[in-house]
């Protein structure tokens, strides 16, 4: 299993200047991840846990007020590792879309609302592909859209003329145009209803199968993760609390937070009372000391409020950051 992206102890904080002084939002607080080739990799967590910021950092797109505080991100390009956060601007631009591409959240604001999609696609190609005639590029776009089951007629439409699901699929078409090795998709289906969501997910997994590349899918919908990801990581308050094969996480979640997430999911055919986790998710401005989940955790012990548990492998290919699972680690 070859990695495509490795994050090592990554820290990225927002520094906000307010009237009351400087505030530090610890959005990505020591994340280590290895994302393998040819998979759909899921990243789950609720709003405000830092998933979008983590994606930005993985994309090498750290702009103020977001700042890089430590750790690194490695891309594996043609067998050699590149440090994504210290690449020169030109090199970074070259990798963008051809090696790594990004499907942002909310497809409505992705496209220029006053330009036809044709000109968005042409702008995109003209700045990333050199030495080809306009007509040739246009034919390439049309062929690509057809491959994805979209009519080339969409090129003549303005973004607002398409439905949300259609627009999201066009955004996927744009992100996959140059056959990238990694696609980062940030909540691609959140604004869509279940039927349109299914079409978008279907398209994403088809593209992944076709290109044999990696899709990093960020969503808070555990049902989506269960259906299309093979590995996943659970993020809470800027940290990864559990990581492993999706199947293992769903069948035997080890972190109390993951257990709450999975056991609170309603299922059709079952009306048993389901409880969600007590308390509220913490603000990234004031992350509780120790394990960030301890104020909400029913199993919290004294040390949970003092020390922060590391992410350790407690079962084959299944890592968790929780003191409760330490015995399993010691035993092995």
């Amino acid at each position, binding site marked *: 299993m070859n990695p495509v992206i490795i994050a090592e102890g990554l820290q990225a904080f927002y520094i906000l200047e307010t009237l009351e002084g400087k505030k530090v939002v610890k959005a990505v607080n020591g994340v280590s991840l290895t994302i393998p080739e040819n998979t759909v990799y899921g990243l*789950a967590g*609720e*709003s*405000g846990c830092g998933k979008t910021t983590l994606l930005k950092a993985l994309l090498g797109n750290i702009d103020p007020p977001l700042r890089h505080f430590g750790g690194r991100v490695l891309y594996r390009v043609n067998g050699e590792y590149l440090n994504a956060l210290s690449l020169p601007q030109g090199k970074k631009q070259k990798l963008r879309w051809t090696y790594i591409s990004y499907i942002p959240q909310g497809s409505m604001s992705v496209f220029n609302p006053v330009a036809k999609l044709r000109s968005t696609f042409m702008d995109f190609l003209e700045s990333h592909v050199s030495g080809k005639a306009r007509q040739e590029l246009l034919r390439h776009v049309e062929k690509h859209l057809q491959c994805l089951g979209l009519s080339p007629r969409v090129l003549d439409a303005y973004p607002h003329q398409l*439905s*949300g*699901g*259609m627009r999201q699929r066009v955004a996927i078409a744009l992100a996959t145009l140059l056959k990238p090795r990694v696609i980062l998709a940030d909540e691609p289906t959140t604004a*869509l*209803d*279940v*039927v*349109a*969501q*299914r*079409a978008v*997910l*279907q398209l994403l997994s088809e593209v992944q199968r076709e290109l044999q590349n990696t899709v990093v899918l960020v969503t*808070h*919908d*555990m*049902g*989506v993760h*269960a*259906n*299309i990801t093979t590995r996943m990581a659970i993020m809470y308050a800027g940290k990864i609390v559990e990581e492993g094969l*999706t*199947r293992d996480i*769903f*069948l035997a979640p080890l972190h109390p*937070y993951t257990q*709450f*997430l*999975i056991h*609170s*999911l*309603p*299922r*059709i*055919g*079952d*009306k048993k*009372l*389901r*409880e*969600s*986790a007590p308390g*509220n*998710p913490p603000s990234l401005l004031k992350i509780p000391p120790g394990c960030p989940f301890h104020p909400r955790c029913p199993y919290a012990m004294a040390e949970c409020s003092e020390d922060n548990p590391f992410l350790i492998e407690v079962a084959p290919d299944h890592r968790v950051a929780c003191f409760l699972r330490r015995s399993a680690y010691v035993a092995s």
Partner: protein
Amino acid sequence: MSLLEVRKLTKVFSLGSLFSRLRIRAVDGVSLAVKEGEIFTLAGESGCGKTTTARIILGFEYPTSGDLLYRGKDIAQFRDRRVWFREVQAVFQNPFDTFNPLRRVESYFFETVRNFHLAEKKNEEAFIDEKLQAVGLSFAEIAGKYPSEFSGGQLQRASIARALLTSPSLLVADEPVSMVDASLRMSIVNLFRSLRDTLRVSVVYITHDLATAYYVSDRIAIMFRGSIVEEGPVEEVLARPRHPYTKLLLESVPEPNPERGFREVVVCEDREEYLRAGCKFAGRCPEAGKVCLEEVPENVLLGNVLVRCHKYQEGGLMV
């Protein structure tokens, strides 16, 4: 008697200019009845008319035709719309959009109390506190705070408490949990269940998430392109779906079970579907026949489930 009865509700929106006008029947002859103390779900994909139906019930929008009856009385007869607002209250999708970010949350509570003369000046706080207790908050927790100081779950609770101020008999909740954090979602859904059981509040719950709909509701109506295609007790409709569209919708729910993937499906997002002559689902339906393209299906009653599909006739499958 039903608490709220909707009869042959139709809403037509005109699109385009004077010369190329497109008339879309966003709600097309919808009839439904909500009983006292029940949670009634309206489910369907975007553009099926569920939100428009809700907005008409709430009085935000006037129907093109059709009647709304509240406890048997036509609501057009409520001269003072405040009387209607006292009985029916709304809970919106995104609590951060519900409240103005520059206003303190408590000000909404005081405003509603004063508008409806719900309590004496000196008892206002106690009155508000009582309603907040019903949703698991207290006045002390919201006092002096702006919306940004709450988590999504807390703010949605506050929004439900505000709706409860007038002691309404019906809440209309449009996707009330889709913007709430995953770990808190079930606590909001459970809140609707407990409000139904303790205060006998009826809820019109609007969603496309069939899993929470199954969990929370008593009856469900599945809408497609402006009409209800299947309606009945939720256990019955979702366990044994009759209409091909209900089957499609059910299959699209991403089940939290990694052993089972999606089946491939045809997706069509045409505006033409609104204008289709026969059954509006015919273009996507795997079982569509000739009659489906030509004639609009009638309501067929199968036990306690109402289905609108040419496949069925009174008592069972068409032979």
